[in-house]
């Protein structure tokens, strides 16, 4: 193997970042948002007193946490059109693109993990807060939205952000669907030009820089917002 060929990286920067990285970032941000919302709802279901809600939510979370992400990706990729047709009354095949399928997969998958984090967060808010809020006359929804959830989010913010960084790394698995995220773009260039070494190392370096900076940011935020107890 002759010397490290920086040229191939140089030529493909536009494709790698404009197509690949944009895909990865879009997927990460959209599924993190959706997953967080769904995860919070699931956490509330798990903590609710209604047995049906807590059992269903608990089963969902345990099931998804027990399966490898690759398997879940394949399930949804092949299954979503059938489910779509079933949900919309089986009138026509619901053709979903690769990105939509990946988005649904990651949102539903990450929701299970965000649910556990939020459950932990909600439980970490002292009972006295809920009691005080109720004593002030707030109804249950207001207690939840104005008192408990904001504190839960604040407590769990570092863990939620760390989970989002993990999600960012996990999006590389859409490789198995041949979707062009950042890693997929790097692999395509590598195979087209026969430069596996350069492209894989470059992809590793880029991921490392992004994730390291992000986790340092999380640590900084954690120190800044730590509440002494």
């Amino acid at each position, binding site marked *: 193997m002759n010397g490290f060929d920086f040229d191939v990286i140089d030529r493909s920067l536009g494709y790698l970042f404009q*197509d690949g990285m944009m895909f990865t970032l879009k997927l990460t941000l959209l599924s993190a948002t959706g997953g967080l919302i769904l995860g919070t709802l699931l956490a509330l279901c798990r903590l609710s007193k209604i047995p049906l809600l807590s059992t269903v939510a608990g089963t969902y979370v345990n099931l998804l946490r*027990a399966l490898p992400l690759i398997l879940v990706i394949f399930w949804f990729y*092949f299954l979503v059109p059938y489910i779509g047709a079933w949900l919309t009354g*089986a009138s026509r095949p619901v*053709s979903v*693109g*690769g990105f939509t399928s990946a988005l649904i997969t990651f949102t539903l998958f990450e929701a299970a993990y965000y649910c556990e984090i939020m459950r932990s967060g909600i439980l970490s808010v002292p009972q006295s807060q809920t009691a005080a809020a109720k004593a002030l006359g707030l109804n249950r929804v207001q207690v939840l939205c104005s008192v408990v959830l904001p504190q839960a989010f604040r407590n769990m913010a570092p863990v939620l952000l760390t989970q989002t960084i993990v999600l960012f790394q996990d999006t590389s698995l859409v490789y198995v669907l041949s979707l062009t995220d950042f890693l997929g773009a790097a692999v395509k260039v590598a195979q087209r030009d026969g430069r*596996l070494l350069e492209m894989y190392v470059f992809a590793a370096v880029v991921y490392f820089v992004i994730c390291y900076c992000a986790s340092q940011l999380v640590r900084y935020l954690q120190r800044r917002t730590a509440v002494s107890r």
Partner: protein
Amino acid sequence: MQKPILSFSAALAAAAVLISTPVYADGRLEKIKSTGEIALGHRDTSIPFSYLDDQQNAIGYSLDICYGVVEALKEKLEMDNIDIKYVPVTSSTRIPLVANGTVDLNCGSSTNTIERQAQVAFAPTTFVTATRFLAKKSSNLSTLDDFKGKTIVSTAGTSNIRWATAANDSQNLGMNIIPTKDHAEAFLTVENGRALAFFMDDILLAGLVATSRNPDDWMISEEAYTIEPYAIMQPKDDPEFKKVVDEAIIAMMKDGRLEELYKKWFETPIPPKNVNLNLPMSDSLKRAIAEPSDSADPENYK
């Protein structure tokens, strides 16, 4: 500890529900008419049938055939425009994607086989090729026996890897078969020495060699192992759609457009490296064009 048991039984229950739920679909013609778009499956590195050029656009012989079909669909459905959605597929995802509705026509390098006809349907054959192997000239390989106990590579989900696995078992060759995601990866596996040879359709091998860095280093075997008729893949149990597609392709065969497309992709320089594959039409293909057939029986193409 009860939770995992609960999730296990819930999963079984969900599966039971899934089994009993019938899934129907309307025809693709209605879907194309109402959404105004058609989803064409394409490959990344099936040169020259369906591959990505320098700008990552999908081009190729099969895609051009599909464009001809889209024109015929426009006429038949009386639409001014049909948007084309390009869906990247691999050998192992193309069949489930055509079956589940994500892809309407798979324009790649799919072989028409009897087993596949249980899940999808095929248009009339538009190319005839055979399984051969690709190896470095320096390896001096010529017959299947040379591979006893050695490592070979093929692409996952292809009829070639299926044949290789079955032959490995029936002839007791003791080969190790590495499955890869797509053809370019398999080629690289031979290039960097992990496998001795790449078993694949000879036309795809020729395309890979022609666009490689050092084409002279490579040899493609004389021996052919199976006959592979290529056809555009379409959904099963949709006779109206099949009729339109089949008639469009037969029309292209009759009025000479298919021959022009053949010349464009096999006898003139093609992107991205402007290499000419220089492959005149084989006799079996000429016969398949003169008498269009969507049969999977290799005997028909000898």
